[in-house]
């Protein structure tokens, strides 16, 4: 559904994104994570047709990202979406429905259904008088007014309180379940982990890791073993009547067993714990950068 081929973006001599390639299947939820300034937003804006790649190309549903036909199929939610504050949610959504050439009756029904699902009250209040959470809901409703196949959401829960954040994430998950293809970026990796099928990790404008969660854990994470014994062993803590020691290799597990047996005890349970996406991300980030982000100017 989405195909990015070696897209690169330079601003003057600064390389914001260095030749990224990835594809997203229909109905897939694709996450882009990375630290601030990693190039996530620039990548999303290139996909949305807002920024023209300096080189490379991107297509959505086989259409170049700069065509009106592609934009007709796209719902874009930027990290910050300031609204026309003098308008009401209804007039604002009608305005965009008009621009997307949505039939007025269909638009009317769709906007009220979406606002109902988002539980947005006070639809005749001016947007300037609304809270940030309410505005975000209106912005999400706007991204759906044309019933797009593809959604590009940049930090959809940015700056919202925990309650509204959970609501927005759940709503996004619901959209994914309805079959929308979603490209999603977020700082909160728990959210990404909970709804994304695949993830790329960007750092310094470059994709430094990619795959589904298991693949990333296998490559960049590690497995911890929780070894439970009947007797105390070094580095163990007492837990529910037994002793637990956390180790990171099978050799250490064997060593723990030997120590327990030497003390007259035994191992009663071994449990495994995989790295979280956050740990994977930190491991990848610690691996450092691979190249410079500045283009050398040709000297005469």
């Amino acid at each position, binding site marked *: 559904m989405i195909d990015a081929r070696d897209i690169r973006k330079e*601003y*003057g*001599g600064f390389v914001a994104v260095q030749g990224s390639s990835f594809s997203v299947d229909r109905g897939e939820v694709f996450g882009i994570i990375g630290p601030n300034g990693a190039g996530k937003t620039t990548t999303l*804006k290139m996909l*949305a*047709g*807002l*920024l023209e790649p300096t080189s490379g190309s991107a297509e959505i549903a086989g259409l170049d990202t700069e065509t*009106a*036909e592609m*934009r*007709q199929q*796209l719902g*874009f939610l*930027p990290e*910050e*979406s*300031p*609204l*026309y504050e*003098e*308008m009401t949610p209804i*007039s604002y959504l009608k*305005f*965009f429905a*008009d*621009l*997307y*050439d949505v039939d007025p009756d269909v638009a009317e029904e769709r906007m009220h259904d979406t606002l109902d699902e988002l539980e947005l009250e006070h639809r005749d209040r001016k947007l300037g008088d609304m809270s940030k959470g309410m505005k975000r809901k209106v912005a999400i409703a*706007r991204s759906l007014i044309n019933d797009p196949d593809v959604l590009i959401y940049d930090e959809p829960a940015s700056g919202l309180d925990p309650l509204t954040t959970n609501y927005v994430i759940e709503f996004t998950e619901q959209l994914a379940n309805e079959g929308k293809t979603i490209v999603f970026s977020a700082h909160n990796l728990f959210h990404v982990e909970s709804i994304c099928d695949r993830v790329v990790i960007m750092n310094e404008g470059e994709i430094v890791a990619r795959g589904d969660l298991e693949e990333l854990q296998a490559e960049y994470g590690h497995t911890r073993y929780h070894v439970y014994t009947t007797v105390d062993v070094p580095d163990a803590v007492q837990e529910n009547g037994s002793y637990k020691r956390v180790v990171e290799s099978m050799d250490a597990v064997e060593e723990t067993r030997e120590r327990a047996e030497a003390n007259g005890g035994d191992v009663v349970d071994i449990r495994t714990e995989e790295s979280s996406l956050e740990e994977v991300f930190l491991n990848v980030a610690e691996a450092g950068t691979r190249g410079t982000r500045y283009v050398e*100017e*040709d*000297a*005469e």
Partner: protein
Amino acid sequence: MQLDTLLRVAKWEVTKNAGGVDKRTILVMALSLVAMGAVAAIAVSGGTGAGMDDGIYRIGVDESSPYYGVAADDSTFDIREPDPAAVERRQQELLYRGTQLRSVPRTAKERAALTELRDSTAQYNDRTLARDDNQTAAFPVSVTLVYEQQSGSSQLDPRSGDGSGGSDSSDGSGSSTGGSGDGSDTSGTGGSAASGGGDSGTAGGSGANLGAIGARLTGDVQGGTPSDISPPFPFESLVLAFLYIVPMNFVIQAYGSSMLSERLNRRGELLLVTPASRGDIIGGKTLPYLAGAVGVAALITAALRFGNIAPAGSYVAVLAVVPLVVLFLSATFCGAMFARSFKELTFVTVTITVTLTSYAFVPAIFTDVTPIALISPLTLVVLDLTGQSVGLSSFVFSTVPPLLTGLVLFGLGAGLYREEDMFTQRPIPLKVLDALAGGINSRRSALKMSIVLLPLVIVAELAAIAFLFVLDSVSLNVFGTNQSLGIVLVLGVIVIIEELAKSLHVYAGYEHARYERTLRSALGIGALSGLGFFIGEKGLLIARLSDLESLPIGEAALQGATLPAGLPLWVAGLLFMLPLALHTVTAAISSVGASRGRRAYVAALTVAIVIHFAYNFTVVSTLV
């Protein structure tokens, strides 16, 4: 660009902003309109509408006196029963018995009252004679006035039209009838030039037309007497031009705010991801303001026409305003794309208001005085309102340069109407470079850009001529030549404008890494820019549509595009090719400087300007 999408954006631009105007703003706008209406009313009534001097002179006169009718027709007089005692008590300024003045004016007010009565009597006699069936008897002496076109711009004769003065003659020949005054206390009125024909002054030449509308504007419906013929200042042109210019300044304020608000806090970003193109968005957001400004111009024209102030006003006046509206809006659009805040936008719009109002307003003051007036489309408005025909060539000359300039400015601003330029907070000079760099793709862009920017050059040069032509009569000894100060200054300004037009986009190209910073590349790009300018410069031939070259300053300013008549063929050929060499050389110099950074560019540009000025000055001193 799709019309239906553009119209949708336009519809929502109106709806959105209508909801955003608060009561205080509406109140301010209403007060402004009332104030403008009051100004217009005062102007139309000739400044007497408020009746400040009504009844200030008390005159004792009975109905049997011939002066009774004179005083009754003049609102400054308060007619009372003749009473010598009242004169003694200073309660009457004048006292008449029959035709005899029975009081002796001793105070300043009494003397002023007598002078006013004499003026009123003269006008009363003119009106009476004009109504006489036997005009030959009324005006036995016929005087033919012929106005000669003056050479040189310092001869500011506001009646130097086509030679046909105000007349009631049906053939418009300009012949006027006059008569001898009665020699009594009518101040020696010599006759009436436009009397007897009622309102027929509009049928004559330009001078008569302006006189006629001036008469309406000042309330002097009689007009036509020798004292009316040559007022030193074209008040009527000023008032008419003012009426059309003022509303545009209100429109661009609203337009600039709307455009800038799209940029602040990234509000306009979401429009850019809709199927609407940049052109749809800009066009849609501009259309309501364009329509509004043109609509206001149409309303003003209609009000003047049906209010019988300018009965000749027609669609020509409205059409002539369109390029000005486009120019005002496009400059504001660029300003809104360059400004980083409303504070900066205020500075930009004030600059635009002052500059463009001067461009439109100043030349229009000299309607019927000098061909320079045609530089401004407002001159066409004044001509149309005064019933003078506007030729197609004059219309093209006045309207095409500002219209094309407006379109170029819209193009430059549209180059910035994209995500990566729209929301950046770069200083205005860098934004200007961004806008110029937007049109550069390859070396050949240098040629294209020099041609594209030509309308801006033409308008700037025409404006320079309009502002500096008054200095044409001041001589200046420069390098042993006796040139006018106006010509020297206009040459200097034009050289700076042209060298900037040729090199600034090249510098922008280097700053945005669109060109290679090599000497060979710089020379090639400079040569292309010079060639483009040479080709585009022929657009100045549009000046042929006016009589601008009849003025020394116009001839000097346009010598790059036109050739003096009567030259041998080889000289003409040489003069035709020399500008090409000049433009390519100076553009190449600037380009080499631009390729080496800002300071080198400024230094190289200065050298190019000096060379260009020396060339122009030599040509003008030799040939013009």
